[in-house]
């Protein structure tokens, strides 16, 4: 439970979820403060994506609640939800040759009337989102023909065009080379500087230390650990969470943490 209930933008309380018989998440609680940039880490298959989808409202928790500014996301209507939370997915497959600008414009869907096209404020939001994610120069390129790093930035621009209060990112650094990873972290810093609250699941633990205000470690069969990076990224906790003997990986060497 949060120590500062007044400043928590996101408050997940005892959320559980499962697919059929299989329980994926059991009694998960976490908070994300307004304006912070937070990492969600944990081993493969532990339910990071499921947790993000619960928070985005794509899934409903079986038990517990996901509160945004104290209101249950599950009770939001569809469009209200789309204006409050944006989830940038790992994978985005587009069957047709939409341009980057056309893709980012889709982020305005929750603001448009049934028949109305984009109005001036929608255009401005699209420009703002593209500029922030640094894809303005790619505007007329076909999305499918972009590189992995460029696609990632376009997906973030699409999320930003929703003008959400909370931006969720599912493995934004996956499949990027080191240079693109650093670029992406710079982008997250920049967004944080502009007041965007971010919760990102991150696969690569090397990228977590020093880059996030807080870290949530999701481990199978354990309670979620939350705290500053140096408190969560300890060899003991990581070894326990990832089921890997201490000393078998550079990050798990007691003195070898590369922060």
């Amino acid at each position: 439970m949060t120590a500062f209930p007044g400043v928590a933008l996101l408050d997940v309380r005892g959320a559980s979820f499962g697919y059929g018989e299989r329980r994926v998440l059991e009694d998960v609680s976490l908070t994300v403060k307004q304006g912070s940039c937070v990492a969600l880490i944990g081993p493969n298959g532990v339910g990071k994506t499921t947790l993000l989808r619960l928070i985005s409202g794509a899934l409903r928790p079986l038990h517990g609640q996901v509160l945004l500014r104290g209101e249950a996301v599950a009770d939001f209507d569809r469009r209200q939800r789309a204006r409050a939370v944006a989830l940038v997915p790992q994978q985005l497959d587009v069957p047709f040759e939409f341009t980057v600008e056309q893709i980012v414009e889709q982020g305005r869907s929750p603001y448009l009337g049934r028949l109305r096209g984009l109005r001036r404020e929608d255009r401005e939001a699209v420009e703002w989102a593209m500029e922030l994610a640094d894809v303005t120069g790619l505007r007329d390129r076909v999305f499918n023909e972009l590189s992995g790093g460029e696609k990632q930035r376009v997906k973030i621009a699409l999320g930003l065009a929703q003008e959400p209060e909370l931006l969720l990112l599912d493995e934004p650094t996956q499949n990027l080379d080191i240079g693109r990873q650093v670029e992406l972290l710079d982008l997250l810093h920049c967004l944080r500087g502009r007041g965007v609250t971010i919760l990102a699941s991150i696969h690569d633990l090397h990228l977590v230390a020093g880059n996030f205000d807080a870290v949530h470690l999701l481990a199978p069969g354990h309670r979620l650990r939350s705290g500053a990076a140096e408190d969560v990224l300890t060899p003991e906790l990581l070894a326990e969470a990832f089921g890997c003997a201490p000393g078998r990986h550079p990050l798990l060497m007691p003195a070898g943490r590369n922060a």
Partner: protein
Amino acid sequence: MLLVLGVVLILAVLLSASVGAVRLPMRGIAATVLGRVGGLDDMQRTILFAVRLPRVLASAVVGAALAVSGLLFQGLFRNPMADPYIIGASGGAGLGACLAIVFFSEVTFLGFSATALFAFAGAVLTMALVYTLARSRGRTGGITLLLAGFAVGTMLSNSTYLFEVFDPNGTQGARIVAAWLHGVIGIPRPQQLAITVGLLSAGMLLAYPLMRRLNTLALGDEYADQLGIRVEATRVGIILVGSLLTALAVSLGGLISFAGLIVPHVARLLLGPDHVRLLPVVALAGAIFLVVTDTLARTLFAPTEIPVGILMVFIGGPFFLWLLRKSKREYAL
């Protein structure tokens, strides 16, 4: 763009109305239609109004309806290979039409033959069946829908061949059925043509507000849902309008494949994938395409007329194969 296509469509209609067993001067047709002097003589007028124009306009309606329903289904299934033929709507409409030809050939309603009405019911019922089969746990997978549609459609369209073999009315019915299966645009009654044009316009108007949502659906169901789109409702709307348009086309021209595939695809290659922009372009281009093809079908080997559906297969088949080879590189499924 729309203006150019509109002018081309008018020219195509005039040209098509002028050629045939009796040649009518284009200038005379234009003057007659506009009610000016210097038009056609009485016999020519009869040919124009009773034979040529109804058929040419019917082919325009069929082309527009097929092309737009192709656009809708391709967008819905996020698959450039989809068309009303492939997902079963045409097969259902064809079976309905055959039932009517064989059992209810005398019945008419509002100028519609039983054939047209049964074609319509067949298309809508088939799509409802396909949709129900493909739906599980409140969701409908695009690929599942496509496969279910293909299976149901193939079963239905093949079962219509049985009417050719076991026809209770003898050779006459069998010949009409055969014409239906191969796609021949008949000469509709004025009332039927008017209602069909009205329904086509209604379908286009209903489709228009769905086009922007179809763009969002291209990002995938879950993403579209996240962007505030009512995915299932949009899907049902698209299927209803698409089936309506398919049924209209089948009720006038029988089973014509490939038209619904080629037109939207070429339009998308030229103008990009924005459905809002594509809708009117595809409707006009589809109308032009079928007016031209049907004119060729009845004049190429005159006095023998080949079914427009067969001619379309010879144009569409190679195009589809070209598409297949091209898409192997572009779309990873």
